[in-house]
């Protein structure tokens, strides 16, 4: 039986305080819950970058758990989101390139419902193919509404069928129903939600228990055999009511993480699972369910390896930086115009030919190494960098993404255009003698100084609102940070 080999989450570090959201918009739309915070993706984070971050943590976790070949073993990659960055191209191809997975990988995007991540996991668990699943979401809701407070940004990645499993798959079921409680046309940024009592009574309480019953049947288990129950639901109390309706009398209800991060949409069932796994013991069974145009329920059983599962999700949840400025949300998400100055109006030349020719360097962060001098450099070039002399032997590809580096020079530039000024950047030295002028990102970017250790993250490099085009590259953030230790 196949199972989950590794599971890791990624959350943006900004935690937008719900009290600040209420203070900004409460005069217009009285809010409900104002405790806690929701994650807020920085301007240069999106579902693609969050998926890459989670997948890198997931692959690193597998490597530490004795699956060093995980990266090369993967044969299928799914990217799940309800908030796709592009209608075209396929986004899994970008995630695939950033992770430097084998060329012979079956990549696909899935979406349409927040259940898409769990649906993809269900499909992977029913297959015998080593698969990497990434799910990341950035649900956008009307400013001032309750949904804006409840939903949040985040990503998760699961490695399936690649080696010693943390959780063994026992069985699962997915039901489909034309139950539409939330909708958004492709050209609209904001979703519309329908009345929540109806969603709870006719949706969750009817469909989820039936999916659970069917999954338990497939697993040849009874409701009393379930030790943990994971069900994301932004409606207070609904998950508990579903557990009761499904007869999961013994099961511990997984934390919704609503105060720490909010509901991360397509990622959230597995984000909650990652946190719940920290409390699981060998032999315990977890039922993971999610709702959306039907329901999916999967039954998994912890192996002995669960004892060594790191508390990485807790660390990521705790690694937030409180953000009290509500306006960062509508501005980062492009929901309102802002004064960027004439310096910020220059268009992005997508130069797709250049981008493809250099895709390995740009997306995979692969430099080169001179066979003659051993010098590592970025970007790769035909002739090796050197103070003097001609070194013309063809250079070898040299991946840099996981090496990290050291800040050589740094600045916080108040003149350069930035979507979150000041623009912080500097020269970064990378093992092997390489050096590159890089963007510094993260809320702490301004603190980086010469000598500081950095690690590299995949982020949005440029975006052009006029065309909708965006491109990606690697940036430096202070090291170590918890998601690196996931």
């Amino acid at each position, binding site marked *: 039986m196949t199972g989950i080999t590794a599971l890791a989450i990624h959350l943006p570090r900004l935690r937008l305080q719900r009290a600040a959201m209420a203070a900004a918009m409460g005069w217009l739309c009285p809010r409900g819950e104002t405790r806690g915070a929701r994650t807020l993706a920085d301007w240069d984070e999106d579902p693609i970058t969050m998926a890459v971050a989670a997948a890198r943590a997931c692959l690193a976790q597998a490597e530490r758990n004795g699956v060093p070949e995980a990266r090369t073993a993967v044969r299928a990659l799914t990217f799940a989101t309800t908030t796709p960055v592009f209608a075209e191209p396929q986004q899994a191809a970008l995630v695939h390139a950033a992770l430097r997975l084998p060329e012979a990988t079956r990549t696909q995007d899935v979406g349409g419902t927040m259940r898409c991540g769990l649906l993809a996991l269900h499909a992977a668990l029913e297959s015998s193919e080593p698969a990497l699943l990434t799910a990341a979401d950035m649900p956008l809701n009307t400013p001032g509404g309750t949904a804006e407070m409840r939903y949040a940004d985040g990503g998760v990645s699961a490695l399936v069928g690649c080696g010693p499993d943390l959780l063994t798959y026992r069985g699962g079921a997915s039901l489909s129903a034309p139950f539409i409680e939330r909708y958004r046309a492709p050209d609209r940024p904001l979703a519309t939600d329908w009345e929540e009592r109806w969603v709870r009574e006719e949706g969750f309480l009817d469909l989820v228990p039936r999916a659970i019953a069917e999954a338990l049947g497939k697993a040849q288990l009874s409701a009393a055999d379930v030790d943990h129950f994971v069900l994301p639901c932004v409606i207070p109390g609904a998950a508990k009511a579903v557990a009761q309706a499904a007869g999961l009398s013994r099961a511990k209800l997984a934390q919704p993480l609503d105060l720490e991060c909010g509901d991360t949409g397509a990622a959230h069932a597995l984000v909650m699972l990652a946190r719940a796994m920290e409390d699981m013991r060998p032999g315990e069974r977890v039922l993971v369910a999610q709702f959306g145009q039907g329901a999916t329920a999967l039954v998994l059983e912890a192996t002995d390896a669960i004892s060594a599962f790191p508390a990485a999700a807790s660390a990521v949840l705790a690694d937030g930086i409180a953000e009290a400025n509500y306006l960062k949300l509508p501005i980062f998400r492009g929901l309102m115009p802002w004064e960027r100055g004439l310096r910020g109006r220059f268009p992005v030349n997508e130069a797709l030919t250049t981008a493809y020719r250099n895709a390995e360097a740009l997306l995979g962060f692969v430099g080169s190494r001179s066979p003659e001098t051993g010098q590592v450099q*970025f970007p790769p070039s035909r002739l090796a960098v050197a103070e003097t002399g001609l070194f013309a032997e063809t250079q070898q590809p040299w991946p840099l993404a996981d090496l990290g580096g050291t800040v050589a*020079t740094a600045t*916080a*530039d*108040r003149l350069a255009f930035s979507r979150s000024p000041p623009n912080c*950047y500097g*020269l970064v030295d990378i093992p092997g003698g390489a*050096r590159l002028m890089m963007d510094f990102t993260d809320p702490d970017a301004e603190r980086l100084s010469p000598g500081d250790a950095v690690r590299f993250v995949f982020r949005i490099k440029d975006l052009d609102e006029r065309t909708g085009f965006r491109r990606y590259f690697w940036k430096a953030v202070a090291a170590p940070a918890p998601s690196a230790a996931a």
Partner: protein
Amino acid sequence: MANGIKDKVAILGMGCSRFGERWDVGQEELMAEAYLEALGHAGIAPDQIGAAWYSSHYDDIGAGKAGTPMAQALRLPNIGVTRVENFCAGGTEAFRGAVYAVASGAVDIALAVGVEKLKDTGFAGLPPASRGTFAPMYLPTHTNPGNFAQLARAYGTRHNISAGDLKRAMGHTSMKSHANAVKNKNAHLRKAITVEQAVNAPLVADPLGLFDCCPVSDGAACAIVTTPEIARSLGKTPVLVKAIQLVASNGWEVQSSSWNGSYVHTARIAARRAYAEAGIADPRTQLSFTELHDCFSITELVTLEDIGLADEGTAWKRMLDGAFDADGAMPSQVDGGLKCFGHPVGASGLRMLYECWLQLTGQAGERQLANPSLALTHNLGGAPAQNVCSITIVGAA
């Protein structure tokens, strides 16, 4: 075997427009302003010019590409006009082209013009420069204040200079150039400032504040060069070219972790070669004054060390002691420099030479130095980590 450019070419005449926010004129009029002055000094007719070099960096907000904008603005007599572009070092590049043309014997008289019309962007500072298609895909959106702020931080760290001391030395650098520019009617900024004003100005890119940065200006400068023999036959006391060296980074600083970021690698190489070409053994005693590329106060401090006019790690102290003031041992930026004369990118290298020519021919008016004999210009294009650096030395015959 090449024996360098020393004494092979003479400056016959020069011109320079008023620099500043020239809302009144465009690039064509700026070129004409500098050209007509140079033509008058040279005492020649346009049809005596055999070839021309034209430096302008921003073709998109200026007059466009190629040689035609200058040929048309100056109504040149259907001669060859070569447009050159080497970041902020373009002015010296144009001069080098003209000088080499004369030295080769291909023409008797050559023209070099640099111009930039920067105030048609709608915002302060330099516009983002085109970097092709690949570099923007990985390089940060950087500005020159940001690039040179990194130099300042690395210089301070390398030599254990406290942040306060470095700010004061940078403040003195700017204060001195402001004082000099008060005496220059063509300068963009003609207002004296105090060190305190400079130190307390708003930050642009830490640790560089507003007064650590030069303005960007509209302006043009022009040189007409010929052989020393022709210059003398025209009754001129020629200013002779002693050396021109131009050094381009090959990526070593920015792509390998060998360089410590506290100095400009190319400037050291260019200075060494220029002194050798000019036959200068001791620049501290042989040079009379310098015009350095003080795009930022820190650039001037670091350059003084890179070209050997101060020991490494000491320029900041000597600056505070007044060594580079107009009445100091080695005046620097007598005309106000980029800091106050202004910085029309493609023209700046020629503007520096204009001041050298004025001083060496005794035409510098109330800022005239006593008996200068040898002057150095340093014209830097790009960032400390990746640049084109040129050094020119000119002297009285």
